[in-house]
């Protein structure tokens, strides 16, 4: 370190109270002027040991805890959990539940990516995209609220079914929203993504090569930003995603090396459009049915273990659940996508500048609730 960097190394403790660490994250920066020689993340400020809590609650009662992991994409969090339990129990769900789950998960993905894009603009210094993204996100949250009554922590996916069926006219309004929303993405692109200042700020920093990304277990949009075409929905389809037509966007490196912050950001923006496509198809596939049909009276899976992963907006969310045959889970271990991507942070941020640290952190799109669990 001393050989490469002249001058004195100063330690700058960024966080836990800092406007753009996206929560209570502490970064220990070793800086030489504006250059960062080393950035060591310290996590755990939001640790509440949900895995221990879950061992003392019955299976359906875990869902509210699971919601609170990634509070920006709670629908996807609980989706992974209930799919794992259903697989353990061997429950088959009907088509309506399946399609509604997909619609909700994709709407939630859009909402989550909107937060990611908006806060990323905020990190880079442009404040307007944040508000525009939140404006559209509110509409999605309205859908959730009218359906299940909550705006953030839904507890909507239940083991074997859904909490409520959707209100009449939901399908029409969702399609209307998607029609309205797709041009808004162009607007956002004009304002932020194609802005040359933004490109220069992000397109050459925080490079994660595909090899590094895989070695560090980076998943989801961050992995695809590095040019690896891998999506759980496509490569290990669950919930019948194989019937849907959608592209898996990958980072192409238009303005710099592949795997830069801009690529990761752009993958999210492109994914939003793919989600819109999926929503249209899922609404078309929606058939009448009872969403409470296959909800078991008592969730008591046989002894065994299961690993189930789904594609949540921040990457692959894996649940490793060990059941001992009782009504409470023996052990739930969550593979959190943000946790793994955060472990690659040190690798991605060496030799960058302080402003880049924020850019890299924002492009990873972390949620501290999920890292610390």
């Amino acid at each position, binding site marked *: 370190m001393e050989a490469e960097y002249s001058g004195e190394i100063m330690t700058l403790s960024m966080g836990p109270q800092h406007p753009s660490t996206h929560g209570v994250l502490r970064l220990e920066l070793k800086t030489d002027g504006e250059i960062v020689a080393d950035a060591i993340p310290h996590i755990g400020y939001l*640790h509440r040991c949900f895995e221990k809590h879950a061992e003392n609650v019955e299976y359906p009662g875990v869902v509210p805890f699971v919601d609170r992991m990634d509070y920006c994409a709670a629908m996807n969090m609980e989706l992974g959990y209930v799919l794992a339990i259903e697989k353990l129990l061997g429950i088959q769900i009907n088509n309506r539940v399946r399609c509604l789950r997909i619609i909700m998960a994709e709407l939630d993905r859009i909402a989550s990516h909107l937060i990611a894009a908006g806060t990323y603009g905020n990190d880079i210094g442009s404040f307007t995209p944040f508000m525009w993204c939140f404006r559209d996100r509110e509409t999605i949250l309205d859908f959730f609220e009218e359906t299940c009554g909550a705006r953030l922590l839904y507890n909507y996916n239940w083991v074997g079914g859904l909490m409520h069926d959707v209100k009449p006219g939901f399908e029409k309004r969702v399609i209307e929203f998607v029609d309205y929303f797709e041009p808004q993405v162009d607007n956002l692109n004009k304002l932020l993504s194609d802005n040359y200042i933004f490109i220069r700020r992000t397109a050459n920093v925080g490079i994660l090569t595909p090899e590094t990304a895989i070695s560090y*277990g980076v998943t989801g949009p961050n992995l695809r930003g590095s040019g*690896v075409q891998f999506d759980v929905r496509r490569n290990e389809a669950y919930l019948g995603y194989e019937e849907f037509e959608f592209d898996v966007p990958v980072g192409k490196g238009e303005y710099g090396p592949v795997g830069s912050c801009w690529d990761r950001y752009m993958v999210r923006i492109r994914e939003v459009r793919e989600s819109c496509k999926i929503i249209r198809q899922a609404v078309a596939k929606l058939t009448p049915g009872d969403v409470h049909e296959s909800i078991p009276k008592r969730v008591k899976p046989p002894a065994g273990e299961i690993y189930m992963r789904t594609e949540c907006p921040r990457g692959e969310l894996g649940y490793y659940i060990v059941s001992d045959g009782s009504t409470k889970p023996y052990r739930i271990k969550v*593979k959190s996508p943000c*946790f793994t991507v955060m*472990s690659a942070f040190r690798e991605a941020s060496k030799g960058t500048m302080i402003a880049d640290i924020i850019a890299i952190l924002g492009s990873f799109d972390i949620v501290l609730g999920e890292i610390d669990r």
Partner: protein
Amino acid sequence: MKPQEISVILTEKFGARILESQPEAMNPWSAVEATAILDVCRFMRTEDSLCMDHLELLGGVDYKDRIEIVYILYSMKHYHRYTMKCRLPRENPSIPSVESIWGVANWHEREAFDMFGVVFEGHSDLRRILCPDDWEGYPLRKDYRPPKIYRGMPV
């Protein structure tokens, strides 16, 4: 590749160091001798037909009589998954670190150390990761009782 084939390859290569295999289970797994885990993992990472380049999950489970460390491996090339388990005693568990094979193992092992007190030999930076550095006990062990007072604050 099917889990059955993976388990056959593993038994052929490592023989008695693979303690038990259940490739038919919902989550197919093999139990590996703790001292052999580094060799097994390196083999699975480098062998072209396996190419397990993605460590999906590394975590512990406390079975009251033993602690199991679970490695779920996935291949981004062949799209197959396999689980490996190492059984460790509850008193002073220790196991070689696989940090040299997958970068992400660094943090996963720190978490397992934090939650179960498993020492990973050869780990570059084995500190607590989620709990405070001076926390006592290992929270995810089944016999863990949270402290009443931490640094003068009621918990």
